[in-house]
């Protein structure tokens, strides 16, 4: 079938030589990759619909409808049995709910901690392993936890972090008895310990992404900079780092979104406790809805979380959009 690649088709009507640079588009309109125009001989626009229908059915019924229903439900006081329209009351309640305040603070801690630990560690490790003889093997070890689920990672880290766990044992063994503590039982250590546990899992992916960026660093640029006498920190600061900007945007965007969505790790390690002190918005929503049956209130929290997630993914979404990041090839 591949023989058909050779110049068969008629001269494409839009083959006028150098095209003026097009404005960047954020949305996929019918692009140059779309061969068939409406009215082509294989039927009108409706001919394409059956191809897309299964996807629309799945997404429409099981994602879009629940989404709309959640937004609608957030205006009701709903305990699972009776529901009553209360307008914006659920949102007003958020403002003076101390649990929600703590949850919001923890969510911010997660975002900040994720930017500080996995992203920074990912960059440093990627740079350190770049062009190292056994760098590939080292990267493989660090990316290995990425293939393990959040749940299994959490089961392992519970074993590490519980009061008679491996971390405290190790601290006592080296004489740092005063450092040993109930990592999961007090705020803010529990949230910080959880962030460290997720760093173990999440760093590998960032290493891989940064390594891809480093490999794309043109040799000429590096050599030119070396001729000009740049090395070490100056090279990193003025050549490597600017070159990694595109990757960094994606890594940071993904890190923020993933930290906002983090659920498995926290649920297994602390269930958001003790006394709801390590809950993030993702956990608070789950507990309010499925443990306390405050369905409307839970929906309001879910909506707040969604707004935050979508707003922060805009950062890297802009790049991912069709016909910007991809058309450049």
């Amino acid at each position, binding site marked *: *079938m591949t023989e*058909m690649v050779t110049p*068969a*088709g*008629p001269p494409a009507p839009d083959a006028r030589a150098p095209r003026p640079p097009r404005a960047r588009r954020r*949305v*996929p309109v*019918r692009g140059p990759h*779309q*061969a068939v125009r409406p009215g082509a001989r*294989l039927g009108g*626009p409706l001919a394409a*619909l059956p*191809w*897309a229908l299964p*996807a*629309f059915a*799945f997404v429409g019924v*099981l*994602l879009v409808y*629940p*989404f709309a229903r*959640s937004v609608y*439900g957030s205006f009701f006081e709903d305990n699972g049995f009776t529901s009553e329209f209360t307008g914006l009351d659920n949102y007003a309640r958020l403002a003076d709910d101390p649990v929600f305040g703590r949850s919001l603070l923890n969510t911010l801690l997660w975002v900040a901690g994720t930017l500080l630990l996995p992203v920074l560690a990912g960059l440093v490790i990627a740079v*350190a392993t770049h062009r190292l003889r056994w760098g590939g093997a*080292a990267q*493989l*070890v660090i990316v*290995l936890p990425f*293939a*393990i*689920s959040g*749940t*299994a990672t959490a*089961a*392992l880290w*519970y*074993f590490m972090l519980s009061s*008679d766990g*491996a971390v405290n044992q190790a601290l006592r063994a080296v004489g740092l008895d005063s450092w040993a503590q109930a990592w999961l039982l007090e705020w803010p250590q529990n949230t910080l310990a959880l962030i460290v546990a997720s760093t173990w899992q999440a760093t590998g992916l960032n290493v*891989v992404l940064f390594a*891809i*960026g480093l490999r794309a660093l043109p040799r000429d640029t590096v050599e030119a900079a070396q001729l000009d006498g740049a090395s070490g920190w100056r090279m990193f600061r003025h050549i490597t780092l600017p070159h990694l900007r595109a990757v960094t945007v*994606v890594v940071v965007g*993904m890190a923020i979104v993933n930290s906002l969505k983090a*659920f*498995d790790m926290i*649920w*297994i390690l602390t269930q958001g406790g003790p006394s709801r002190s390590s809950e993030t918005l993702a956990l608070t929503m*789950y507990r309010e*809805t*499925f443990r306390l049956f405050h*369905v409307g209130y839970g*929906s309001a929290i879910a909506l707040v*979380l*969604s707004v935050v997630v*979508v707003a922060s993914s805009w950062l*890297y979404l802009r790049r991912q959009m*069709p016909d910007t990041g*991809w058309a450049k090839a």
Partner: protein
Amino acid sequence: MGRTARHVFVAGCVALWLLPLYLLVVNALTPAADYRGEPDWTLQGFALADNVGTAWKEARIGDSFQASLLYATVCGLVAVLVAATAAFAVVVLPIPRPAFWFWLIYSGTLFPLQIFLAPLFGLYADTGLYDTRIGLMLVYVAWAVPFAFFLIRNQMTTMPPELTEAALIDGASFRRIFWRVHVPLLRAGLGAAFLFQFTAVWNDLLLGLTLSRSGDVQPVMASLATLRATYASSGPPVILAGALVVSVPTLVLFLLFRGLFLRGVTASVR
């Protein structure tokens, strides 16, 4: 960074990353009865089979393992097929307003699962899909389609339109063009999408926790959560053996298809 410092730093990181894995394996091998309430740092025996057996039967990880294998394989395949045909419609065929359809499908990956959960639970309770295998499979497909669609669509836009035009001139139908031109050329991309969705479904906890309850329906991560919460008395060796055994499929896939695996994630960078 000096050459030596660099080696030392990387070695330190590798050790730090390996240590939890080492403890996981060592303690999963400790006979549950011999566990002294403190983590073991050296090998104490070789009771992996017993520990896995306990987790497999008593905590019913075994049933869930089979269920999850079914969910991840079938839902991964169905989602890739559904996403590929939708991408074909949006990229290649003359569908009106492709941007609208793109956003409709793609929006599914943007939002956190929490926004879908409560209505899904209600919907499932009303239609009798709650705690059924078919119910979980439906929701997993719906959950997997958006990102698979995104990956496949990006791949498809890199294919020259002359391919489709040539095939049309030769008199091929859409169905034929899809199966004989696009699918063979996109094999790697489809494989990456499948691996990605298989892993996502296998690793899911939240949907399984919310939409199922009984042992032979619950996916494997939800069972592991139950094992950790209610069988804590059977001791860390059993729990760790459970964690180890549920990680095997994704670890094996990852080690076998590392390039393809990371392609899914790294697609967004290039």
